[in-house]
């Protein structure tokens, strides 16, 4: 009689860690297939380091989802910051700190405009951020003249990403630090609870005394800042900045957010989930790369992952609802038998 419920409950429980398990399996399988190139500490380190900018953009994409919105402009904001950071140092000869500051202010400004348009004027986040993405692309194309900026310049530009501490590249520290801080804030503090409440039912949150508008605006600003950081790290690592309008950063970021929503807190966008998802996708792509995958493989794979992740995310939510429905019926059943006994 009661077989169905525990099984579905187990499925939901297992679902929490399945992404992590898949991630570890991917690492093991590729390591076994390519023990000399894939299964090495240096490969894992570089896998971790190279994808830190992408991680930042994925985290930037995750935050608006938590408050019930989304931001299609994160990728272009990252590129804007990258281009400004490299360009201001290389072309305008500003010092590194000033360049970073200006690149971040620009990113935050975009986030602020998005946030205000969405939270105060109640425009659809789809249209607002899509428009903003294009506007931002226009700005960075104008600034660069559509040319890649190469730096011949100061070591200071690349110092904070190309150096290592205890044999570990600095970007890894930045990425893990930011991930932990965000995970703690969202999962363990009243602020995080209020953001999830806003995302679940904005009116209910408002009528509980949560200033939801302010939260939505700040979420967009912080999201844009994270994207900006991702862009700066990318520029610094590469020592150059390409005004890329291909949207190559956006799809993996969204795939990471959605795939991450199937893990740890199934059905909910969450930071640890995004972290694991970003590296799962990266681990697979790095592996395929070592098998000499053609250029079309990466975008196709990322698109497929996003597609599958959306389906999985919907499924986990439904599975949870089903498990709950089954437990309600069971309760009803118990009531009935209790009633019959009395």
């Amino acid at each position, binding site marked *: *009689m*009661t*077989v*169905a*419920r525990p099984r579905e409950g187990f499925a939901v429980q297992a679902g929490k860690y399945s992404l992590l398990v898949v991630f570890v399996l991917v690492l093991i399988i590729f390591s076994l297939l390519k023990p000399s190139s894939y299964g090495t500490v240096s490969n894992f380190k570089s896998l971790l380091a190279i994808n830190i900018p992408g991680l930042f953009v994925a985290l930037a994409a995750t935050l608006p989802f938590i408050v019930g919105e989304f931001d299609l402009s994160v990728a272009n904001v990252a590129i804007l910051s990258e281009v400004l950071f490299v360009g201001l140092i290389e072309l305008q000869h500003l010092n590194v700190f000033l360049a970073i500051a200006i690149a971040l202010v620009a990113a935050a400004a975009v986030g602020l405009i998005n946030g205000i348009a969405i939270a105060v004027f109640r425009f659809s986040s789809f249209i607002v951020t899509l428009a903003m993405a294009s506007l931002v692309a226009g700005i960075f194309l104008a600034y660069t003249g559509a040319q890649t900026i190469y730096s011949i310049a100061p070591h200071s530009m690349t110092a904070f990403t190309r150096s290592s501490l205890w044999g570990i590249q600095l970007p890894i520290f930045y990425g893990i630090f930011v991930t932990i801080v965000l995970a703690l804030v969202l999962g*363990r*503090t*009243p*602020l*995080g*609870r*209020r953001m*999830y*409440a806003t995302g*679940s*039912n904005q*009116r*209910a*949150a*408002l*009528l*509980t*005394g*949560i*200033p939801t508008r302010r939260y939505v605006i700040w979420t967009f600003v912080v999201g844009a800042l994270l994207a900006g950081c991702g862009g700066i790290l990318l520029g610094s690592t590469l020592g150059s900045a390409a005004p890329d309008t291909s949207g190559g950063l956006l799809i993996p970021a969204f795939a990471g957010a959605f795939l991450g929503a199937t893990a740890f807190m199934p*059905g*909910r966008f969450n930071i640890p989930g995004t972290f694991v998802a970003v590296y799962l996708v990266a681990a697979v792509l790095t592996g395929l790369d070592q098998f000499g995958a053609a250029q079309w493989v990466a975008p196709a794979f990322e698109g497929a992952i996003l597609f599958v992740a959306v389906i999985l995310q919907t499924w986990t*939510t439904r599975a*949870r*609802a089903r498990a*709950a*429905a*089954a*437990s*309600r*019926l*069971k*309760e*009803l*059943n118990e*009531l*009935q038998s209790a*009633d019959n006994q009395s």
Partner: protein
Amino acid sequence: MSGAPISSEIGAPALRVTNVEKVYGGEVALGGVSFDVAPGEIHGLLGANGAGKSTLIRIISGAEAPNGGSVEIFGGPIRTSGTGSDKGNVAHIHQDRALAPTLSVTDNIAMSIGFPTRFKFVDRRRADEQARAALESVGLDIDPRKLVAELSIAEQTLVAIARALASNAQLILLDEPTANLGADDRLRLLERLKTLSRQGVASLLITHSLSEAMSVCDNITVLRNGLVAETVAVSSTDENALAELIVGRSIVTERTNERSFDPATTPRIEVRNLQAAGIGPLKFSLAPGEILGITGLADSGHQLLGELLFGSLPCSDVDVLVDGEPYVPTTPREARNRGLGYVPGDRLRDGLAIDLTLDENLFLDGMVYGERVSRKKERAQASEALRTASVKPPIPEAVMSTLSGGNMQKVLVAKWLFSTQKILILSEPTVGVDIGARGEIYRLVREAREKGIAVILASSDVDEVSILADRALVMQDGRVVAEVTREGLTPGRLTALSSSASVTN
């Protein structure tokens, strides 16, 4: 298009439910349910949330197949259809009426019975005529070119019924058609249903209101835990007997105990003046531990009071004292900080974070009674609150969407009740809540009163106000038309005062 049902078999009942069983994943939702509805009969279907009403309705409307037993409509099978499609013989009038609000009445009706055309183009005039004819069948005299959104909820329900009848539905399933209606609209709608039944239309009415069932139904089937508790003729039962059938034990509908309030104490909240669009000027005050009922018809303004005082709707002029200190409602946050709590009437829209857990809903802003505590402590506190409020299941990690309506409402009340708030505004606290849960919610409200919380009970349910309140105000068109003291608090008097044109105390 007349409303008379076409019998497919002479003498067959309009609806015959025979031994219907439904099992979900090994769990019994319906354990063999049987009853008949005669042509022209209004048959009530009552039961607590979770008793199997919705499952049964889904089966009768053809949305789901039973695991055992059969359902016959006038001796024939159910012809399944989408809501209001022209092929079905059963029309399920959903709570949300399933109308397209931004289209006209004409278009809504034509959507299911077809657009009359002329040279392949829609013939507007004939479409309007067809709509008018359909509306006539339910006695509704409105311009069919009006948008559905412009109609009152009662009118929308009638339009949905008219559409169903026009598409030859032989049985109408009404799912709580009077929820969210004021007393006046409620009466009008029920009158229309009676008229339709005299014309031979059979309907199955689901309701939580016993008085409504008693006043309009011929027979009533009470479901309990997936079984028929009993099918009774209205002529041979009364509300208390029905209530007992529903909960399976006798329930008390006793009034809140009497208490005297010293006029010299500072009122917990004193509204010296409150005005907003279409509301006011209002003036009232509450002592600590007093329950003030505010009632009226649906559009009388009492339902807006909560949002006005809680700062989520703007007041044009306001002069309020909380514990003797001036309070200006600006934002819900300010209201909360000043010790107000608000349980909104539309819990799905305004109250619940449906995909979050119970403890997250209880402590939606992340603070536990004003303090930051560990996750573990929060769970423990939530568990205690859920037990005290007898929420089922009392599991903090359960997701809100898995609860029944009554239990959701208990969580919402508990959310404010156990906090340190001093003033609680409840808007329609038991709409769509079964009798068992209703009793629990009343108990919680009385506990709040014992703690010295001042409770503003804004409710269209006159039974509720007369049982629960110490005192009541009756509103009409945004103004208070009468103040009723404890001695005068009866449902009859409140109803009379709500709808009377000239008010005499």
